[in-house]
C-alpha cells in the first residue's frame, strides 16, 4: 500500500477549519456556520471516498501513515484503519456534519461553539485512526475538553453539574487507562521477538496485539496475586466501560444527555458511546485475548462481561420505562442498547462481534435520529415531558413518520437496521452464554413496551389545542433526518453494506482470540 495522506486529510481538515474560524469576527455568524458546514462536509466526502477505496478483503490496517513524533519515548504519529474503524470514521464525519445543521440556531457564542465542534471531530476521528497508544490517548483527551465546554456552556439548566460529572467520570477512566498504558509501555521493552515484542519499549498497538497473541504479557510480574494482563484489562475496561457506558458507570449519561444541546446529544449518543466499544475491541480484545478466552472456552472475565451486558440490557430498559423526560428515556434506552455490544464482545465469535459492530453503527444512526426527534419537539414546546404531549401524529405527519422510523429502528424491528445488531449479538452470545442470552431478551420486550408507551402518549390520542399550531418539520430539520432515516432502512435490508467491510477484520479478531 503506497503512502497516502487520506487519513491525515480527514483528521486535520476540521482543525484547519477551527484555526481559520478563529480569524473570523464573531458577529459574522453566517460565515462561521457556513465554514463549519464546509469543514465538516469535506471530511465527510473524504470519508466516503475512504469507504469506497477501502479494500474489504484485506484484514490488515490500511492507509497507514507513520511519522516519528517524540523519538525519545518512541511515540509516533501512526494512523491506520481496518474494517472495524472505517464505518465508525464515516459515522463520525456524517454525524458531525449533520450536527452542524442541527445547531444552526445556536446564537450564544456561535464562534466558540463551532470551533469546539470542529475540535471534537478531530479528537474522535483521531481515536478511531490511531495505531499508537499514546496518540490514541492524546486524542481521547482532546475529545474530552470540547465536550465539557459544549455541555457546560451551551447546555440546559443543570449544565454545570452534568458537565462536571461527565468530565470527572471520563477523567477517572482516562487515568486508569493511562496507568495501564504506561505499564504496557514499560513492560513491552522486556518482550523479545520470540514473544511478539520488538525488544524495545513501544506504544505501537499492532506490536502490543502481537505480544498479546504470543502470550508475551505472561512474563510480567503479578501484582496482588493477579496477573499483569488482568490488571491492564481491568483498568482499560473501566476506562472504556465508562464511555460505553456499562452499569454501574452509566449515570453520567442521562444527565449529560438531558443537559446537552441537541447536536451534542446526537454526537454523544451517536459516536462517543461507540468509542468505548471500539476501545474494547481494539485494545482489550486484541492486546489481551487470553483474558477473554482461554483453554477453548470463555473465562470468568468473559462471563462477567456478558453479565454486565445482560444487566445493561434489562436494567437500562426498565429504567427507561420509568422516565418521564423524553430525552432521559432515550438516554436510558442507549444504555440498554449498548448492552448488546457487550454481549457480542463477551461471546468473541464472528456472529457476536458482527452484532456488536452492527449495533454500534446502527445505534449511532437510530439514537442520533431519536435525539433529533426530541430536539425538534423541544424547540417547539420547550419541554420534554412525555405525559404533556398527545396527538402529534395528527398535524405533524412528517415529523411523526420520522419519529416512528427512529423508534422502530431503535426497538429492533426487523427490516430496519437496529434488528440485525441485536439479533446477531444474541446469536453469537447464545452459542457461549445461553442462559445470559435468554435473560437479556427480557430487554427486548421492555424496550418495545416503553417505546410504544411513548408513541401512545406523545403521538397518538386526541390532538391537543396547544399543539395545534406547531409547524411540521422545516427543511433544515428534514435534511438532518433524511440521511439517517435512509441509512436505517437501507441497512435493515442490506446489512452487508456494513458487515461486508468489517467481516475480514472481525474474522481476524476472532481468530486471534479463539487461538487461546
Amino acid at each position, binding site marked *: 500500500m503506497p503512502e497516502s495522506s487520506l487519513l491525515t486529510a480527514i483528521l486535520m481538515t476540521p482543525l484547519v477549519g477551527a484555526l481559520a474560524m478563529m480569524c473570523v469576527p464573531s458577529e459574522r455568524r453566517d460565515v462561521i456556520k457556513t465554514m463549519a458546514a464546509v469543514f465538516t462536509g469535506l471530511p465527510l466526502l473524504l470519508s466516503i471516498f475512504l469507504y469506497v477505496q477501502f479494500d474489504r478483503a484485506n484484514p490488515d490496517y490500511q492507509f497507514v501513515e507513520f511519522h516519528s513524533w517524540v523519538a525519545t519515548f518512541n511515540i509516533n504519529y501512526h494512523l491506520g484503519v481496518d474494517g472495524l474503524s472505517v464505518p465508525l470514521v464515516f459515522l463520525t464525519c456524517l454525524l458531525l456534519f449533520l450536527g452542524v445543521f442541527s445547531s444552526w440556531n445556536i446564537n450564544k457564542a456561535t464562534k466558540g461553539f463551532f470551533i469546539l465542534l470542529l475540535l471534537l471531530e478531530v479528537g474522535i476521528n483521531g481515536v478511531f485512526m490511531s495505531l499508537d497508544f499514546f496518540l490514541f490517548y492524546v486524542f481521547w483527551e482532546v475529545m474530552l475538553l470540547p465536550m465539557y465546554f459544549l455541555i457546560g456552556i451551551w447546555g440546559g439548566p443543570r449544565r454545570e453539574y452534568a458537565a462536571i460529572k461527565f468530565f470527572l467520570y471520563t477523567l477517572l477512566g482516562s487515568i486508569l487507562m493511562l496507568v495501564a498504558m504506561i505499564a504496557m509501555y514499560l513492560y513491552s521493552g522486556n518482550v523479545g521477538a520470540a514473544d511478539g515484542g520488538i525488544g524495545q519499549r513501544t506504544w505501537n498497538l499492532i506490536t502490543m496485539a502481537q505480544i498479546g497473541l504470543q502470550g508475551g504479557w505472561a512474563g510480567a510480574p503479578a501484582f496482588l496475586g493477579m496477573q499483569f494482563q488482568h490488571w491492564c484489562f481491568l483498568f482499560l475496561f473501566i476506562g472504556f466501560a465508562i464511555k460505553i457506558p456499562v452499569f454501574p458507570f452509566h*449515570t453520567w449519561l442521562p444527565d449529560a444527555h438531558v443537559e446537552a444541546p441537541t447536536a451534542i446529544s446526537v454526537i454523544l449518543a451517536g459516536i462517543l458511546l461507540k468509542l468505548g466499544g471500539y476501545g474494547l475491541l481494539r485494545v482489550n480484545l486484541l492486546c489481551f485475548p487470553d483474558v477473554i478466552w482461554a483453554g477453548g472456552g470463555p473465562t470468568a472475565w468473559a462471563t462477567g462481561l456478558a453479565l454486565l451486558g445482560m444487566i445493561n440490557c434489562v*436494567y437500562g430498559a426498565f*429504567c*427507561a*420505562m420509568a422516565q418521564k423526560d423524553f430525552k432521559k428515556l432515550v438516554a436510558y434506552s442507549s444504555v440498554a442498547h449498548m448492552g448488546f455490544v457487550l454481549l457480542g464482545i463477551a461471546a468473541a465469535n464472528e456472529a457476536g462481534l458482527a452484532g456488536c459492530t452492527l449495533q454500534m453503527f446502527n445505534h449511532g444512526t437510530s439514537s442520533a435520529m431519536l435525539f433529533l426527534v426530541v430536539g425538534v419537539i423541544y424547540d417547539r414546546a420547550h419541554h420534554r415531558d412525555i405525559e404533556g404531549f398527545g396527538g402529534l401524529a395528527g398535524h405533524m405527519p412528517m415529523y411523526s413518520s420520522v419519529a416512528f422510523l427512529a423508534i422502530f429502528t431503535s426497538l429492533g424491528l426487523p427490516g430496519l437496521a437496529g434488528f440485525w445488531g441485536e*439479533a446477531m449479538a444474541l446469536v453469537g452470545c447464545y452459542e457461549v452464554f445461553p442462559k445470559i442470552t435468554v435473560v437479556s431478551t427480557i430487554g427486548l420486550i*421492555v424496550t*418495545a413496551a416503553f417505546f410504544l408507551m411513548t*408513541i401512545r402518549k406523545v403521538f397518538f*390520542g386526541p390532538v391537543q389545542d396547544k399543539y395545534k399550531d406547531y409547524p411540521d418539520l422545516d427543511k433544515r430539520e428534514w435534511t438532518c433526518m433524511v440521511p439517517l432515516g435512509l441509512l436505517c432502512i437501507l441497512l435493515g435490508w442490506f446489512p452487508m453494506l456494513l458487515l461486508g467491510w468489517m467481516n475480514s477484520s472481525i474474522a481476524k479478531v476472532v481468530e486471534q482470540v479463539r487461538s487461546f
Partner: protein
Amino acid sequence: MEFFETTRPVWYALLILFLPLGAFCFNAFGFRTEFVKKRGHVVPLLGIGTALFLSCSLFKSVVFDHHGTNPEATVAEDSHGVAYDDRFVYWSTEEGLSFPLLEAGDFQIVAGILIDNLTVMMLVVVTLVSFLVHLYSTGYMHGDERYPRFFAFLGLFTFSMLGLILTDNLLLLFCFWELVGLCSYFLIGFWFQQDDPPKASMKAFLTNRFGDVGFLLGILLVYQLFGTLSIPGLEARLRSGEPIPALYNWDPHTLCTLAGLLLFCGPMAKSAQVPMHIWLPDAMAGPTPVSALIHAATMVAAGVYMVGRIFWFFTPEALLFIAVIGMMTAIIAATIGLVHNNIKKVLAYSTCSQLGYMMLALGVGGYGAGIFHLYTHAFFKACLFLCAGSVIHSVHTEDMREMGGLKSKMPVTYKTMMIATLALAGVPFFSGAFSKELIIEHALYWGVHGGILHFLPALFAIVGAVLTFFYMLRLMHLTFWGEPRNKERFDHAHESPPSMTIPLLVLATLSLFSVGWPIPFLGGHAIPEMLPSPPSAVAEALPSIEGGEHGHPGLGYILTSFLVALLVLAVGWLLYRRTYKDQRPGPDAWVRRFPQSYATINGLYFFDEFYQATVVRAGHALSRTFASFDQRVVDGAVNMVGTLGQALGRLHGAIDKTVVDGLVNSFWHLSHLLSRMFRRLQTGNVQDYLTFAVAGVVLVSLMVLFLGS
C-alpha cells in the same frame, strides 16, 4: 430467455411480493400529489390485482402442471392423495437464485424463495382477500382524511404477509412476522385520535412481542442445534438421519421439544391462542376491513401457516402441547362468543376459536385438515367481517342490541352473511363443513389411537362446534332477524354501495361452492389432498420417537364425523330455538340459572385482569424500583463519591487553613492582639504619653538603682 423460462416461479413470486410494496411506496412517498390524495386506491388496487392474477397463475402451474410428476416419490400414495415427496417444490436457493442477506463467519442468512403447494395456496388466499378488502375499503373508508395512507398500510401489510409466505428462512420468516405485526399495529391504531385504538394497538404489539421473543429464542436454539436456519436445509438435515447433538446436558429429544415449544410461542401470540389471545378482540378497534384482512383471514392465520411450514419439526410432545392449546382456545373463545354483544367482538372470538381448531388439527396430526380449515376460514370469516362492516357502516354502531330486523333493509349483506354463517357452522355443502369434519375426524382418530384423555380434543371440538353454530345464530338473530330494537338506527339503515357488496358476493360464493370438494377442474383432487402431510422429520433424526408417521383416518371416521356434524347442527339449532325463537327459557333465564359461569365468561375469564395484576404490574413495579435504585443507589453512590471528594477537599482545605495557614496567620493574630492591647495606650492624649514616659523613666531608674549594682 431460457433462464427466465426455467426459473419462472421465482420471477412470478418476486413480482407478487414486490407489487404491493410498490403500491405502498407510491402512496407513502407521493402522499402530497393530488392524484394520490384523490385516488389513493387506484395504484394499490392495480398492484394487488396483478399480484392476484399472478398468484392464480402460479397456483395453476404448481397444482396442475406439476402434480404427481415426481417418479421417484418414495411414500406410497394412499387414500389422501398426493404423497409428500411427490409434491411440487421449487426452492430458488437450490437453483442458484438467492440473495446473501447476511454473513458473519458460519452464520449465514441467504434469502431464497420456497414454493410448494402450501405456498401457492397461501398466496392465493392472501392476494385474493387482500384484493377484495382493497376494493371494499374504497367504499368503507371513503371520505377518511387519511384515505391514501390506509391503502399504503394495506399494501405494506400485503407485502410483509407475502414475504412471510414465500421466504425459505426461519429468521427471515421472523422478520416478516414482525413486519406484519407492525402493520397490524398501525392499522389497529389507524384512528389514533380516539381513545381505544392506540391502547389496543399497543396491546397487540406487546403481546406479540412476548411471543416473538420466544420465537427468536427458538430460532437461536435451532441454529445452535443444526447450524442452519434455512427451512428446506433444516428439513434435509433432519431427514439425513444425522444424530442431533446434545447441549447443556440435555438429550436431543428434550432439546427438539424445547425448540419446538419456543418456536410455537410465536404462533401462540400471533394466532391468538389461549393464554395470549387477549389482544385479538381489542384489535377490533381498527377499521373493519383491517379486521377482515389481518385479524381474520391472513395475519392471524400466519401462526397456523408457520406451524404447518415446519410441521415435520415438532416432536410428539410439542404437538401434544399444540393440540392442548388449540383445544383450550377453541372452547374458551367459543364460550365468550356466546355472551358478547359487540358484533365485531363476537366474530373476533369466533376467529380465535377457529384458529384454535386449526391448531388442534395440526396438534393431532391432521396437517391437511388444519391448513384446509385455514383456507376455508379465510374466505368465510373475511366475508363475515366485511358483512359486519357493511352493517356497521349502515347503522353506525357495533352493539347488536341496537340492531335487529335489518334483513329487509340490507338484503345482499344479509344473504351473504347467512351463507358465511352456514359455512362457519359447518352445514353440509358449505365450505366449512368439509374442513371442520376433517378436523373432527382427525381428532377422533387421535383419540382412538391414544389413551382415554386423548378423546378430549375431539370432545372439545364437538362441543365447540355446537357453540359455534349457536353463537352465529344468535348473531344473525340479533342483527338481521326479529324486530328492530332501535327505530332511529333502523330507519337510517341502507344497503352498502356496490364497491362493498361485490367483495361480499365473491367471498360468499367462495364459501358456498365449497372449493374443497373434489371438483373436476382441480383434476379430481380436493385441496386437502394437495396438502400431503409431511412425515415427521424429527422422528427420522431421533430414535426415541417411534412411528413418526401420522396415520390417516379411514372411511369409518369420515362417516362418524359426518354424523357428529349433523348432530352438532341439530343440537345447535335446538338450543337456538329454545333460547331465542320460543323464548323458553330465554337468554336471561340462562344467565339467571348459571350466574357464576356467566360472570366468568362475561368477564372474559379474567385474563386481562390476571395479566394486569401480574405482568403489567410487575413490569411497572420493576421499572419504578430500578429507576429509583438507579437514582438513589447508583447515582447516589456517584454523587456520594462526589460529595465525599468535596468533603475531603473541605477537610484538606480546613487543615490547610487552620494548621498551615493558621501558623502563618497566628503571627498576624498575635501582633493584632498585641496591637489591640497596646492601642489602648494610644489615647491620643499627650498627657497620658507623658505619664507613661515618666513611669518608664521611673521604672528604668528603679531597675538601674536596684539591679544595676
